[in-house]
């Protein structure tokens, strides 16, 4: 018997009588000011929240904080004049030397400062992970309170790959000492746009 047939037969024989799914969780926490909660949570986990009115302010911030970096890429057309041209559609390993990647998120979640980003916003799946530093642009009106709202928003949308990203890559594997920049970005800046 194949493993598949064996497992399915064993499941048929052993699984208990059907138990119903529960109702959706009622009244999860809702914040009066999700943007400020998001900013606080992000700061707590080692990221930086920057409130801006628009892309001109983002450019100013980039100039002040990230000038002199050899390789800055962005998927956002609004930033094409301050970032590398013709970087898309190369082999994923070629982005190993990206110093800063600036991408957009569909929305953010205040309770954990996670941002939902799918493949279509990354250009290449590896981009938000392989870059040395990551910046994400999200509209303030797209900051939700909790994860239940997040999945209501995602609903049955289709993606090949999607991820919640909350802060920079990190580890505490050595004696529970928190270190930012384990394998992925060493820091994360989130531009919260009016």
């Amino acid at each position: 018997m194949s493993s598949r047939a064996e497992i399915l037969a064993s499941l048929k024989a052993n699984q208990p009588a059907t138990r119903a799914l529960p109702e959706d969780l009622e009244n999860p926490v809702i914040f009066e000011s999700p943007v400020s909660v998001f900013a606080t949570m992000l700061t707590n986990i080692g990221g930086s929240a920057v409130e801006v009115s628009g892309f001109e302010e983002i450019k100013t911030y980039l100039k002040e904080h990230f000038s002199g970096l050899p390789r800055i890429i962005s998927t956002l057309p609004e930033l094409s004049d301050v970032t590398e041209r013709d970087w898309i559609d190369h082999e994923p390993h070629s982005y190993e030397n990206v110093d800063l990647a600036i991408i957009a998120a569909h929305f953010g979640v205040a309770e954990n400062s996670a941002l939902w980003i799918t493949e279509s916003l990354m250009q290449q799946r590896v981009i938000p992970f392989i870059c040395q530093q990551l910046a994400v642009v999200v509209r303030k009106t797209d900051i939700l309170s909790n994860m239940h709202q997040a999945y209501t928003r995602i609903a049955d949308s289709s993606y090949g790959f999607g991820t919640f990203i909350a802060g920079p890559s990190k580890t505490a594997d050595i004696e529970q000492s928190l270190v930012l920049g384990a394998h992925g970005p060493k820091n994360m800046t989130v531009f919260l746009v009016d």
Partner: protein
Amino acid sequence: MSTATKDHAALSDIFNADEARVNWHDDTLWFVRAKRDKAAHTLPEWERLRDTASQIKDNVLSNLHDYLLQFESNAQHNGITVHWAADAAAHNRIVHEILNDNGIRQLIKSKSMLTEECHLNEYLKEQGVDVIDTDLGERIVQLAEEPPSHIVLPCIHKKKEEIGTLFHEHLGTPEGMSDPVFLTAAARLHLREKFMTRRAAITGVNFAVAETGEFVVCTNEGNADMGAHLADVHIACMGIEKIIPQRTHLSVFLRLLARSATGQPITTYSSHFSKPRPGQQMHIILVDNGRTTQLGREDFRNSLKCIRCGACMNTCPVYRRSGGHSYHTAIAGPIGSILAPNLDMKKYADLPFASTLCGSCTNVCPVKINIHEQLYKWRQVIVKEGYASPAKTIAMKTMDFTLSHPAVYQKAGKAGRWFLKHIPFAVNNRMNAWYKQRDMPEPPKQSFREWFKENNTMQKNNSDE
């Protein structure tokens, strides 16, 4: 216990030889437990969230057959190749075949307790395949040639100085350097080279969604993503119980997982893999390895609800003071002690006894597994199946006889005499175990019964002789 290797008690003895180190281990894990408490208390709906998660898992276990078929069909539709493995050997063979088909002899692997359970690394090594673990903690224990001692914090038993020495030997860091920031940076460089050059990546799976055919992998380091998005071949290995019915249920589990595990509101990365990227192969292996047997054990099936957060280990006063390796199984701590006997009752007969049944594990479990009750029930099963020592059985029968016969009990000796022979210190024929570091209570002049006979004449009518 009748195991060839040392049992939990013997291994704990060794661990406790260095008391300062036990204190350090205990404090480190208590710190994680405290972070968990703080995170849980930020959500007023925490207990309702646990209830909901538990009920979703009940539903999963009662429909696993159909959910797996639904997942298989949707994943295949998404371009993922689905494999089934009845046991660890089948799982390991499938991995090897996929690698062979692609002419790959070197791979990277992010954290997967399932592959630890199946001893995949050892198997692949025997086949001449080189595996590098990319989770920092796992890489550290791999360099030390040890198994992980904790499912979430694999090298929690190691001091930074020991890690510094390992890195000096293997990665060429300066001797005596033990700063975590420095060591992490060294590991980053070392592992980046592996990410850049290896064509196959194995990841674990935290959740697989029947409704969509996608699976979710959670890490803080980003190592699963670095591996998967650079490799030509991505192999995801999962126990069949990792299925959840609908995408929306991820909201419940992602809120619970990291808060329970480390006190973070969510892991840095919660990646949803739905389709391979163009030109990439994506495989998923659905592994049974005893899970369907456990599903058939009514008293123990709830152990399959586990989402591998490790909270029960961090809170367990025994785990904190005995270390993960004392459990001599891939998954240590309270949850491991109710999972392991299902795989090999004889080999793991000691584990359900490595607990005071304090119940803290059950209280922190995000999916409300009745862990301490299952420990108690495993003890009954293990004894009935004949894995208790004959001496213990005789002691218990003597105890039962005395305690069932008041006349025997009362004549068994003056206050305390019978006890000094029989309870609870003689049951294992290890009389000295109490005395070694503790004094015995002094037998009083009179037992309560004797006092009552003499002194309660006022209410004599209330004694029912």
